[in-house]
């Protein structure tokens, strides 16, 4: 539930992706812990945490759609 610096060496030219939407992580990322399972998720923006919960809610109310 906080912003973190994405600490990369200058000669590291790889990239990292948002765990929720797939967008690029640049310079820093937002992390949160999944309530079920307790996994840590890295995402591109705070709004992706809300998106994560929203998608889960939709999934529960209309599974398989």
């Amino acid at each position, binding site marked *: 539930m906080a912003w973190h610096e994405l600490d990369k060496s200058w000669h590291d*030219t*790889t*990239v990292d*992706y*948002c765990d*929720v*939407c*797939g*967008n*690029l992580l*640049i*310079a820093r990322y937002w992390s949160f812990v999944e309530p079920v399972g307790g996994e840590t998720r890295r995402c591109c923006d705070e*709004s992706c945490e809300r*998106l994560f919960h*929203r*998608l889960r809610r*939709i999934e529960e109310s*209309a599974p398989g*759609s």
Partner: protein
Amino acid sequence: MTGTPPLADVDRVGLTLLYKRVRNICDEMAFAMMRTAYSPIFSEGLDFSTLVLDRRGRLIATAGINPAMLGASLYAATWIIREVGPENFAEGDVFVHNDPYRGGSHLPEHMMVTPVYRDGELAAFVGNIAHLAEIGGMAPGSFAATATDIFQEGLRIPPTKLFDRGEPVRDVWRIMLANHRTPNNSWGDLHAMLGSLRVGERRVGDLIAERGIDGLNESFEQILDYAEAYMRSEILSLPDGIYTGEDCMEDDGISDRPYWIRSRIIVEGDELIFDYSRSDEQAVGPINAPYVVTLSASLNGLLYVLARDVPVNAGIVRPIKVVAPAGTITCVRLPGPCVGGQTEFQPRIMELVLGQILSQILPERAAAASGNTSLNFLFGGVDPRNGEYYAHYHFEGMGWGGRATSDGNSAQIVPHANCRNTPVEIFETKWPWVHEEYCLNDNTAGAGRHRGGLGVRRVLEVAGDVITVSALSERMKRSPWGLFGGREGSRTRLEVAAAGGEEYETFQDAFGLVSPSKFTNIRLRRGDRVRITSPSGGGYGDPLERDPARVLNDVELGFVSRGSAESVYGVVIAGGSATGDSGQDGSGGGDGAAGDPAVDEAATAELRRVMRDGVA
């Protein structure tokens, strides 16, 4: 749909004026690029975009030229600026970048961005994106359809200084040019991009002088807010719900299997989510999409039916989320290849959104499938006329799908782009090919109440000693779909005839290829001929409901044969010549003894009844 939403306490006229002026700066930048280009892909094809961004690197306006670059326009510059850090820019710096994992669409598209300062303070950015015709990699034209990783697709450049405080960074230039097959051309086109930046820099400089840095950026913020509010009001007008659809890429050039794209659109109030998380894993070959390509396609599908006048800028994305998990075909993971994502995957998603999903809510604005491939045909070699190496990236027009109120248009560029063709006269002047034919491909359109548009046929002969050709296309195994009872359109064909021979065979048969539509580095020799046939659009609505007079007109023009008029449309035509062709031998009707062709009303009514009810 609702009109423009209210924005309180804002000088609406002043804001409109400012936005239009920034748009105009983008247009001027585009004009400079077109006029100074070396590659027909710029000057004729207009395969580029120009951008003005605020001091935080957010897109404020773009010249409305190529919608395919929307995603990259929205994110690439922003991401460069964030990765480098605005504080690390200096006046006179120009950054270049083509990294598809960092906001680029695919390697050939290069972005340049430069900061605009006033009195030592950062005020804004200007940028552009353009498709360079040749950037190295495993195949001339840099569209390696059989690439299995990004390293085969050309030279990848993360955000890199091309100019440092106004001075060219020569080492970078030399690395780039040493890796391109046609360095002179790259040099010229990169300078066209630079010139365009200079134009933008000056014009934005004028704006800053008038309004001050803070004043200008505050107005930019209002323009973003306005675009956001506009999008929200449009989304609000859609019924809440979850709408789904799917389509596929027919193969990836490496193995003979389709890759499925599964999409859900979730509308909730004034927000909308595109969810692609159930799509297939990323492909081995280069049909994968970087995140921005999936985003671009999703937004374009939406913008084709909603928010006609919205300022296209970073504000429109705020109420929208695109979920494309890394590692699926909708968001390629490094080092997956992706050159075809921009040209083949993007239109597929766009039409999936527009034609299959939004048609459930807005049938009157939707369309059946277009040919939906950029039909990339790449070639390079040494020009015998001047001894120089050349390379080109060619795309083809096609038929579009039928619409609610009219037929699909013929010979249009793939719908997610708005590029122009390269005219035959320019083509033959620049490269050693001779055209035998360039025409509409008759009798192929998907039938419907409103039929699809016709594709194009191009026949060209090699006029150099050797030309190395490659292709990256789609719609050779699966036809463009019809909508609401409309029939499928016709497929792409890529064929070759050896010098002196009359018989055409597919490239796949002639060269024993895995994929008919995706191949690299086929060597053709002087006198060999290539026949490119682009797909036609699908039909909209039941062909039996098509106005017989329009069927007759199509027969007279040669677009539809008499046979199809009867067997597909149930229209019986009497009189005129039997062929119904519009040829110049006088057989087109009206000249001969048989009289003008006309619809046999009674026979047509009976035939249509039988076709509908299945009873003779």
